[in-house]
């Protein structure tokens, strides 16, 4: 008995001791002392690798690449070590590494930080300051501005020899997002992320009488928000309420809000008009049962809705449609889903490559960024390999006109043909702000929790919380902050507060 106890105690001690070593990411510690002297040699060797690979492609492209590569000068140090790229997920990066390995000898590694795209927004700040070896990091649209507007977090792309001229063919909104307040290009995206509406053809046939391959008929049923709601009603009646129109409020919100192209914050004023509009719409959908408001975006319930045939469709962006991504997990493996443009042209997320000021593998970093955001041949190869929508209009036109892409999950449909139209329709004037991730999370949180309250209460609760979180913001006066509050506890507290103030 005492032996057992002792063994267990030892196990317990080991378990506790090992927990002390758990930290953010599994980042490998490497010597980050930049060796200025070796940079020239490594750079040239890296470029040799690049040239070898492009020699395999058509002659025109390789010469184009050479001239472009010669255009910029790399000013960051290079010690010839492993290129470390920080991201919260390796889904895209592993595909990119496969393609990269065909063209380069440089070693690359994925360093994990952050639980998910939204969580990475806060965890990066700590990680990047920790002094670990980071060369490139991946950022999302919702919070990228926090990082590219901070020179201690990110370096301009010109330090890697890349300029805005290289991105003439990219989707303009990706360049706008990658540019900081001073007009310096700090980040480049390898993908554009236009989104469409993806639906289950079996359910569409059963309840709406739409033939499996008749995507035009489906698009006609969801061509704008009024039609979308009418179809939801039809579906509800036909299925006796068993099937919802779409899985989550989060998906609706994404399609609705990004298409509005309206900023959350104007100067320092919080704008709630789009939120107000969406609140009314969300309440209508939830009350009518077109959507189940209790389901969290990306949660297990969200997956189950599609798998169990409880929802007709999802709002999916390009990166949801690749093999192994969301569509496959949510019931698309049988190939009976199709994608259409949906009610509005919108984009969802997308990731940008940013350069760390501590980058010490600049040769490989420059090559990596150039390969996936500038080089048309490699971008095409990557797109066809991974199903990702690459950030180059010419390449996407070529893929669609060649008909070289077909997605087995969509029964052989070419999602690019649909999403290319959407991508052309995306407008992104200065509508993203550094507050977006926080405000979006807050809004979705408040909305979901108070969906049964009236719209004014929801907006007030949102404004209260948003202003509490962001002390430099002021309200736009549309929703007075202190006459109603979020939940019961908050209402009580606020009442007590008012009483105390009098």
């Amino acid at each position, binding site marked *: *008995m005492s032996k057992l*106890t002792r063994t267990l105690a030892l196990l*317990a001690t080991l378990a506790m001791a090992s927990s002390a070593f758990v930290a953010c990411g599994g980042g490998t510690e490497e010597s980050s002392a930049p060796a200025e002297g070796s940079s020239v040699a490594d750079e040239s060797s890296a470029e040799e690798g690049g040239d070898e690979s492009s020699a395999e492609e058509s002659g025109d492209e390789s010469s184009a690449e050479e001239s472009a590569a010669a255009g910029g000068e790399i000013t960051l140090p290079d010690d010839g070590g492993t290129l470390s790229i920080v991201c919260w997920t390796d889904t895209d990066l592993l595909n990119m590494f496969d393609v990269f390995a065909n063209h380069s000898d440089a070693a690359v590694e994925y360093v994990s930080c952050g639980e998910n795209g939204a969580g990475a927004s806060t965890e990066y700040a700590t990680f990047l300051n920790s002094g670990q070896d980071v060369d490139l990091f991946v950022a999302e649209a919702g919070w990228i501005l926090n*990082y590219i507007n901070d020179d201690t977090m990110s370096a301009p792309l010109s330090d890697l020899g890349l300029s805005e001229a290289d991105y003439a063919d990219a989707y303009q909104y990706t360049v706008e997002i990658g540019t900081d307040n001073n007009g310096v290009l700090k980040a480049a995206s390898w993908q554009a992320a236009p989104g469409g509406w993806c639906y289950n053809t079996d359910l569409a046939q059963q309840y709406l009488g739409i033939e499996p391959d008749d995507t035009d008929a489906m698009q006609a049923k969801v061509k704008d928000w009024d039609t979308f709601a009418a179809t939801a009603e039809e579906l509800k009646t036909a299925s006796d309420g068993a099937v919802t129109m779409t899985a989550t409020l989060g998906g609706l919100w994404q399609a609705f809000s990004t298409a509005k192209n309206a900023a959350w914050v104007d100067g320092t004023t919080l704008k709630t008009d789009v939120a107000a509009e969406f609140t009314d719409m969300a309440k209508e959908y939830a009350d009518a049962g077109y959507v189940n408001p209790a389901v969290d975006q990306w*949660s297990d319930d969200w997956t189950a809705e599609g798998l169990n045939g409880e929802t007709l469709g999802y709002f999916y962006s390009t990166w949801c449609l690749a093999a192994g991504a969301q569509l496959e997990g949510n019931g698309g493996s049988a190939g009976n889903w199709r994608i259409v443009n949906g009610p509005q042209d919108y984009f969802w997320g997308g990731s940008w490559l940013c350069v760390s000021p501590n980058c010490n593998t600049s040769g490989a970093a420059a090559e990596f960024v150039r390969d996936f955001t500038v080089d048309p041949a490699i971008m095409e190869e990557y797109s066809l390999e991974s199903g990702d929508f690459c950030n180059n209009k010419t390449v996407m036109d070529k893929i669609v006109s060649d008909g070289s892409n077909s997605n087995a999950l969509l029964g052989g449909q070419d999602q690019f043909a649909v999403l290319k139209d959407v991508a052309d329709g995306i407008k992104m004037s200065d509508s993203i702000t550094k507050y977006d991730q926080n405000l979006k*999370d807050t809004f979705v*949180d408040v909305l979901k929790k108070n969906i049964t309250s009236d719209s004014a209460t929801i907006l007030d609760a949102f404004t209260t919380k948003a202003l509490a979180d962001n*002390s*430099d913001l002021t309200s736009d006066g549309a929703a007075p902050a202190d006459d109603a509050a979020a939940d019961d506890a908050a209402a009580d507290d606020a009442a007590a507060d008012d009483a105390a103030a009098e």
Partner: protein
Amino acid sequence: MASAAQRRIKAISYAKYGYMFIAPFFLVYCFFQIWPLIYTFILSFKGNQSANTEWVGFDNYSTILFGQGTAEGAPGVQTEFLHALGNTFILWFGNFVPQILLSLLLAVWFTDAKVKLPGKGFFKVVMYMPNIITAASVAALYVSLFGDSKNYFINATMLNLGLISEPIKFVSGPVASKIMVMFIQTWLWFGNTMIMLMSGIMGINPSLFEAADIDGASSTQQFFKITIPLLQPIMVYTLVTSMIGGLQMFDIPYLFHTGARFSRELETVAVFIYYNFNKGTVDQASYGYAGAASIIIFAITAALGSITFYMNRDKDAIAKKKQRKKAEKQYKAKMKQGGLSI
């Protein structure tokens, strides 16, 4: 008579080696304990977000406590802090009471010489086990078992058995989620408390119990007249450590959620502090609110700790001390009056 060598040895001071040996500890302690403590105070008087280098005096405190700071969001911050404070006390109370009762019962059973429980060692280890699992694993385990919808095990089972007609919101419901956290905290910590109480009980002189037995005291009488009074020092210790731990409760309330954020229904003061501290880059984080909330929770802890100690002070010892002082005074007074009193 000391020789010359002996005198020389005496003249050498070995004290400096002592200081050198303990210096590393103090250096590390200053850097990683004292300075952060002081810095928390400093931060609580500085601004938030982009204004985080400006001195703002007591603005953060008036925002958090009275909702009257300069920022427009001040009432919202106050609401949230009070909500978090309320949650903290509810969650602490709800896990401390069942925990101490269960632990006490088990500790008495396990130490009772008359109750011959088989496999005591096994049970002690098994009951201590939950405490060594990391909170992250525990939260993940419970979230995956007790998810909100019919897609999770517990709700699915109860629905299929017809016990409930609608899934219970164990993770996001305002009441159910609090009960879950209280249960998890109790489950995690009762083994630990039990071991502590057992050591306290075993420290009581067994002859007291024997004497009580011979005098015919029942086990209930023994428990209330011997165990409880003599267990008091350990109880106070348990109460104080549990109170400090409870006021700083963070891991399970923070981790027990689905979706992108922690659950507001479970937001404790520690979660409030962490959230404000870690909202993003330096420009987004509200260090001022986080610092002020830390100081407030420190003040509350100090106050409650003092009250606990005051209530549990050894009254007999104090009475005896007073008596002795009184006697001394009387004696001195008598001496002053001069000589003997007949």
